[in-house]
């Protein structure tokens, strides 16, 4: 495929390349033919800084099923994190409530 399926969002955080970490400017999600994975079409995730050299990139190519599982895992982790933020450190939270894993 040669698709126009691409989502670009601003990103705040850091990613690792070799032994170094670099600050992010964008995260890019695309669905197109794989460059490296021995698969036809893949979800590509790029964590990138467009203001740095082109090597400032952490990229992965995932099957659609893996991407769905990752999305579900992200959803679960984000929900738990938001609960944590609201219940433990959020404004008005009761300090005695602590969730343990």
């Amino acid at each position, binding site marked *: 495929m040669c698709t126009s399926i691409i989502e670009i969002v601003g990103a705040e955080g850091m990613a690792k390349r070799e032994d170094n970490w670099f600050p992010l400017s964008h995260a*890019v999600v695309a669905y197109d033919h794989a460059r490296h994975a021995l698969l036809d079409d893949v979800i590509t995730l790029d964590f990138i800084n467009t203001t740095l050299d*082109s090597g400032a990139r952490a990229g992965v190519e995932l099957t659609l099923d893996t991407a769905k599982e990752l999305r579900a895992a992200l959803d679960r982790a984000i929900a738990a994190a938001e609960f944590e933020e609201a219940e433990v450190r959020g404004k008005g939270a009761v300090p005695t409530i602590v969730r343990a894993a």
Partner: protein
Amino acid sequence: MSFYRGMVCENVTIKGDKGTPITAYTATPSGAGPFPGVVLIHHLPGWDDYYMEMTRRFAHAGYIAISHNLYERSGPGTPDDVAAKVRAEGGVPDSQMVGDTEGAVQWVRARAGHNGKVGVIGTCSGGRHAYIYACQRKDVDACADLWGGRVVMGKEELNAKTPVAPIDMTKDLSCPLIGIFGNEDRAPSPEQVNQHEAELKKLGKNYEFHRYDGAGHGFFYWHRPAYRVDQCMDAWGKLFAFYGKHLAK
């Protein structure tokens, strides 16, 4: 067809869009010529090894071949990192691609031993770009679109970098066209290929389309699971026959 095992391969700097210097990889067959020329427009994965090989393949077959780096402005790096950066930047503008490709065509035309004919070819996004170039300029003699996606575009896909759908440029197509497609591809889908063909037919353009069963997108790429040897070799034969017909002098 004659073969040229001897060739000179080198990087050159050409004038890209608005005079910006860009790098191009060239392969010139050894011999007196005269040789036709081919301009190769690289695909979305970038100015990569596959395009260097394809450039040499054309030289081996007796063409002065050049493949220019459309992603030069995004800096040096490995092809896929540079391509990822370009993707994060929203791609390259079609108009810039036309200016860059014009520089490559001019480089070919200035070569000693050139026979005066130039073909343009691209795969994937390069196929789309080759078609756009052949519609917007009148200095190429044959165009090859290999599974170029987004020739047919919805209005919602148009933006500042890609303001016009290539199919809507068809009336200005200035040279014969060969199209090579896999019927299992979804971008372009067989329906989009049919739509493109209907437009070419309606406007009385000189074209030939070849559709392959059992093949999808990128079926020439020997290093990918998409490779289909039978369909690929047949299509190479059709491609060289097409260029032989339109680029000989």
